[in-house]
């Protein structure tokens, strides 16, 4: 067992990662990563391809089982739980390749996400409460999909699909949200709209975002964690990271951050 450098999660921490490690047949995709994300913070995960960012998200959200280390959501340990249990504990996740229910309408997608009760018998009822309906309509408005609410999610454009998934996370309303490259493949205008949505989510949720677009990162980030070859290379504010020589050497190259 790896030594615990952080100890029990501090109160006020939304997400505590402690020595998280995964070993794929000798290859350590994530190697003793530890970090604490404060409640309400927006943390950006930075790193080159293969640095282990997405794998780290897989480990947190239960998609992959860690070889060692622990994960806490608030004060509750979620290491090794099944995905839906972790989700019920208050963690939401957006995938790199947008993942929505393609054969359901946009509105239905949000309604599914808004079903707070996970049980099959508890959900054996027709319709939704006025509060839920209002919430769904608010979200439709926020992500700008009001006019498309009766269309199948499969017919949305790439950007719209990303926004729908963000909307679903809002409807799910977890404490901590992991976003894997929310602006990948987007146009400039779409990126700006996404930034607005993410900013709106801030405050209500604690966010961990994997992102490459530095302009976007500077726009939204509180703190940045830089990963390199599965390890944490540096962690700090945008300015700290920009000034960090190790980061420049390993990741950003001589040119620095544009």
């Amino acid at each position, binding site marked *: 067992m790896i030594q615990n450098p952080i100890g029990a999660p501090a109160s006020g921490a939304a997400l505590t990662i402690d020595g998280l490690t995964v070993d794929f047949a000798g290859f350590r995709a994530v190697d003793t990563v530890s970090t604490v994300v404060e409640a309400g913070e927006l943390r950006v995960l930075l790193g080159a391809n293969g640095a282990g960012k997405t794998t780290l998200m897989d480990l947190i959200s239960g998609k992959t089982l860690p070889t060692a280390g622990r994960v806490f959501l608030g004060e509750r340990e979620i290491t090794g739980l099944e995905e*839906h249990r972790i*989700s019920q504990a208050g963690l939401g996740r957006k995938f790199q390749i947008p993942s929505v229910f393609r054969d359901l309408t946009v509105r*239905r997608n949000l309604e599914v*996400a808004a079903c707070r009760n996970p049980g099959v018998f508890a959900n*054996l009822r027709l319709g939704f409460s006025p509060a839920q309906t209002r919430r769904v309509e608010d979200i439709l408005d926020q992500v700008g999909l009001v006019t498309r609410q009766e*269309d*199948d999610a499969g017919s949305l454009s790439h950007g719209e699909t990303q926004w729908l998934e963000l909307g679903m996370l809002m409807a*799910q309303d977890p404490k901590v949200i992991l976003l894997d490259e929310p602006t990948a493949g987007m146009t400039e205008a779409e990126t700006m709209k996404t930034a607005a949505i993410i900013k709106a989510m801030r405050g209500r949720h604690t966010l961990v975002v994997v992102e490459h677009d530095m302009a976007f990162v500077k726009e939204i980030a509180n703190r940045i964690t830089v990963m390199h070859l599965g390890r944490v290379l540096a962690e700090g504010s945008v300015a700290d990271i920009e000034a960090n020589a190790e980061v420049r050497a390993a990741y950003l190259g001589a040119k620095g951050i544009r």
Partner: protein
Amino acid sequence: MRLTKSGLNTATYVAFIALILAAPLVFDPFWLNRLSKYLVFGMLGAAIAVSWGYAGILNLGQGLFFGLGAYAIAMSLKLASATSLAQGSDTPIPDFMLWNAEPGAPTELCCITKGSFLWIPFQSPWFGIAMGIVAPVAIAFGLGMVVFRKRISGVFVSIITLSVVLLMRLLLVQAQPLTNGFNGLTDLGYLTVLGLEFDPYMPQTYYLVAISLALVLVGARLLVETRSGLILQAIRDDDRRARFLGFDVPRYQTFFFCASAAISGYAGMLYVMASEFASPTFMDLSFSITMVVWAAVGGRNSILGACIGAILINMIEATVSETPALMEAWRVVIGLAFVFAVLFLPRGLAGLAAGLRDWLVARSEGARPHAAPIPAAEERGRA
């Protein structure tokens, strides 16, 4: 009048149910009996739509649940038949048990052959009826808990269900002293409830089937309209997304798998009442696949569509196979129909109907339809 999608959907259900309830005014007892069998098949179509269309689980062993339901009630009716009472024993005993038993065995249900005590509770028809639902649901539950917990999906579920039905059929035939093996259970009594005797050629049996089908259709439709039903469809589209939204995916899948099994078991019971026999051929692979084809032709994503598909195909089959010129070629006709339906009607007849519905709605709104029809459902669960 403004037409709405859901309004037209409801109207279709009402019209269909009115039609099947009015059928006795038109049909003679023979066609009524025949129709009641087809309505039972329609119920199977609905069961497949629930598991395949809504849950994305293609069960190639639906015949197992149908067969279990059929055998459960047939066991009760067998014990109620005149010959079972006339085997020279105080308690009823199926005739075949006597000639399958070892010479000199006591002629009592408790011990005439190994395992014959299992028949004892079936002396009560209520037990048989209950088992007709409970047994399929229990097996579906056990299977679902294992298969869906292991996150097996798509064609692998199909292969497992297919293997299970073949295995069960094998055991059913092998257990001949208990089940009469390949010949199945015949020479059954009539089910009598509150003094009403369900002779398959009397209208009351037809009404039992028709009302049952109406209830099943409405019930299944309501079930998939609930939040759970919605979540189930979400799981069908993307089970990983649903998991990360906090839903216990295997539970949902198992629940609706069981619902589908319960409907199939019930259909099996009704079939026995309409046809007066139960046979291991109900668990033939070809029958299970045929059911799926009915649902595909009718529309796998539509409960009513799959139901009507089953009824229509059987009517056409009967007509074609009783046409002297096509006596030997009717299977060619059916085979061709299957191929064309799958190729050119990926959403089945229900897809055509939905297109018509959307056109009507659009026309009544005075606007052209705003979205193209939903593209063919992507196959989920490719390995």
